[in-house]
């Protein structure tokens, strides 16, 4: 059962102020309507993971760890490896997150991150087969939300993509009898793309990118687009209960691609040979 949740109380005064500012094209934290908060990330900080990235987007902080294990391909895709995405809304990230197994919000988040990676064809699943139909790599992507300051989706998609980029896999040799031997070689995961997601908050028919926590609690609804590096759309999700006009959907799709290009240059900028902290600002 999915059950209506009580919305967190945002003071009426704040809400009114927010709406007045918005009608003048400004936001309560002084950002412009199309301005992201500061994005920064570190990769490789969890040595025991095969790949990891800690990403902060304003006050939101997400840690993604990737583990690669051996497993069996699915029956209907014997020539592909397996990708598993899981998300945990840790209760220490927000008093509104309950301890316990992932609830519908965590599941929807994990499934959206999964779609963004899978449909963009980011991870080359065919390269993850070792013995077709028998043995393959299983790539576990665990999204750990550490601090919840709004816009979890963008932070999670970007952190997951960055963690996958950071992932190394151990190579195996297969002899003629199909027996596996672990080698000393490690390689990067073979990647085809780098998906970028852009989320809009919508209040009273006004939309803006990257809602922060207070905006998120006030918004009528949300719309997220994930773009490939060439500007294709690989995933879309409307979230929460409000309504959107078709015309605005198209406007957001176009503005989203503009923002995605900015974020992309930030995310891919310092990649080569550098696993250290990388701070940038996609805003303005």
């Amino acid at each position, binding site marked *: 059962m999915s059950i209506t949740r009580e919305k967190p109380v945002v003071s009426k005064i704040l809400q009114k102020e927010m709406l007045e500012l918005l009608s003048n094209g400004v936001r309560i934290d002084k950002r412009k309507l199309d301005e992201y908060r500061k994005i920064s990330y570190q990769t490789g900080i969890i040595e025991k993971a095969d790949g990891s990235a800690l990403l902060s987007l304003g006050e939101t902080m997400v840690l993604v760890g990737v583990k690669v294990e051996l497993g069996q391909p699915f029956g209907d895709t014997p020539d592909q490896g397996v990708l598993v995405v899981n998300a945990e809304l840790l209760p220490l990230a927000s008093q509104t997150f309950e301890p316990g197994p992932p609830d519908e919000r965590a599941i929807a988040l994990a499934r959206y991150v999964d779609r963004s990676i899978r449909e963009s064809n980011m991870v080359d699943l065919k390269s993850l087969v070792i013995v077709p139909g028998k043995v393959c790599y299983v790539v576990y992507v665990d999204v750990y939300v550490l601090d919840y300051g709004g816009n979890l989706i963008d932070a999670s998609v970007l952190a997951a993509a960055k963690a996958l980029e950071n992932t190394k896999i151990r190579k195996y040799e297969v002899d003629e009898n199909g027996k596996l031997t672990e080698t000393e070689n490690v390689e990067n995961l073979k990647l085809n793309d780098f998906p970028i997601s852009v989320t809009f908050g919508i209040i009273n028919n006004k939309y803006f990118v990257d809602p922060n926590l207070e905006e998120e609690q006030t918004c009528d609804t949300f719309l997220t687009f994930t773009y490939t590096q060439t500007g294709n*759309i690989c995933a879309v999700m409307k979230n929460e209960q409000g309504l959107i006009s078709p015309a605005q959907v198209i406007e957001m799709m176009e503005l989203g691609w503009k923002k995605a290009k900015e974020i992309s240059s930030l995310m891919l900028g310092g990649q080569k040979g550098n696993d250290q902290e990388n701070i940038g600002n996609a805003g303005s």
Partner: protein
Amino acid sequence: MSTKRQLINEQGIRTDGRGVDDLRPIKITLGYLTHANGSVLYEQGKNKILAAVFGPSEVHPKHTELPDRAILRVRYRMAPFSTEERKSPAPTRREIELSMVIRNALESVVLTELFPRTVIDIFVEVLQADAGTRVAGVTAAALALADAGIPMRGITAGCAVGKADGKIVCDLNDIEDKEGEADMPVAYIPTLNKISLLQMDGLMTQEEFKQALSKAINSAMKVYQLQVNALKTKYIKREEVKK
């Protein structure tokens, strides 16, 4: 998604004989159940979706009620025998996500503020699945809500569009859903010109996305006409009985 066989032939005809903009046959049986307050059997192609509504009712446990409006409880489930391979009866992550997605689509159209401190239960049971079940579920739920006499801002009509063999096609069937390049479920309220559910996965250019959204709205309009006809027919029958 990778194309494995031809889904649309040279004449623009799909595997089930439809043109790219055609919907599958739709059948609406209102009041299918005796004990629910409102119910419908909604069939679209081989989809058989049973939706039913109870309420507004008292809320248990008490502390989950809201002082200013009704809460909605929505459950979307697929029967173990509804799919090619038997589905385990335990709820999957997909079913949990779709229950939420359907609830989100309905929250803004049900006039919940008329029924404070109550709950409206909406059950969507997929008895047979044939692609597009989430939007068929929203369409069915809207009919069941209307059948239960729950006031709404408008009737929600859902339809999926997608991309197959590089073309945007309406109301994907099972093969197109599995082997096509993209799937895009949309729920739309024609009287408000608003979208209440929008998802997409697969690969589309921005131009294709625009086209798909427009085709989704056209398809939803067709579904809407059938919804309105079904509700009118039932209403007229009731009126006649009254005379």
